[in-house]
């Protein structure tokens, strides 16, 4: 049976290490989308809670469509930019983007056209659940940060369920620390 010398074994292990480090980097995708949509989701939920608590006037709600418009504009422009080089992206990254867009689209559709069903906090919870699904999808491909962040988002939904007076704050915190936080970590840890 053939075998390796210690020098060859070291060389092989170093190669494996390099490949795995590169693979982990390729899992860090779309940090900017997570950050932008995480902040939009947080601001919407937070605004509703602050209005309910009487801390800000109700006309402040009119600012929120501007946030949505800005996030959509950013997503379209950045998406186009990435689309130009999508052929060069590994299959896994293309799948991440597909899940990201589908979840955002479904959550947005539910919010825009299901407002009789998803009333009050249900609408915010839809966004949190969509966020958790995306994070868990990334997590099953070996990204531990996504797993932790997905758990944070999901726990916020469960916790909000038992905290009726501060439901909005809890859901907003989940979105901020889980979804936007994942985006921020992905961006700042990029080599």
């Amino acid at each position: 049976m053939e075998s390796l010398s210690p020098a060859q074994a070291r060389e092989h292990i170093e190669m494996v290490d390099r490949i795995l480090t590169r693979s982990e980097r390729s899992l860090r995708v779309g940090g900017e989308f997570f950050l932008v949509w995480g902040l939009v989701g947080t601001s919407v939920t937070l605004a509703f809670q602050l209005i309910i608590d009487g801390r800000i006037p109700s006309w402040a709600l009119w600012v929120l469509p501007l946030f949505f418009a800005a996030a959509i504009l950013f997503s379209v422009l950045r998406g186009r930019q990435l689309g130009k080089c999508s052929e060069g992206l590994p299959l896994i990254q293309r799948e991440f983007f597909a899940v990201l867009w589908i979840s955002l689209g479904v959550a947005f559709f539910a919010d825009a056209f299901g407002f009789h069903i998803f009333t009050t906090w249900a609408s915010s919870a839809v966004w949190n659940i969509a966020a958790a699904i995306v994070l868990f999808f990334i997590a099953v491909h070996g990204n531990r940060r996504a797993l932790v962040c997905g758990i944070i988002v999901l726990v916020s939904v469960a916790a909000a369920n038992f905290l009726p007076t501060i439901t909005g704050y809890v859901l907003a915190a989940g979105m901020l620390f889980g979804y936007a936080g994942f985006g921020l970590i992905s961006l700042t840890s990029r080599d």
Partner: protein
Amino acid sequence: MDDLLLSKIRLGVIAELLDAEWIAFSDLQQATQTTNGNLGAHLAKLVDAGYVAEEKVFVARRPQTRYRLTKTGRAAFVEHVRAMQRLLEKESAS
């Protein structure tokens, strides 16, 4: 150690597939910096051993061959890396 993974190219292929669902032949070729024929021969050995699964699909109406790591391949890789680590530990201890 696993005889099949003593080859640096085959070990590299398995490492590339470790975190991925499916990887196209062209992407593997780019990652491993090998020729078509060379990579094809190495992949055939990995497929025959059941370490890697092969699938032919159409992407944008063009045929594409893609690969995925199997459970057997993952277990063999883990055991092989452990064996290499043990070898290095033994060397540093002596």
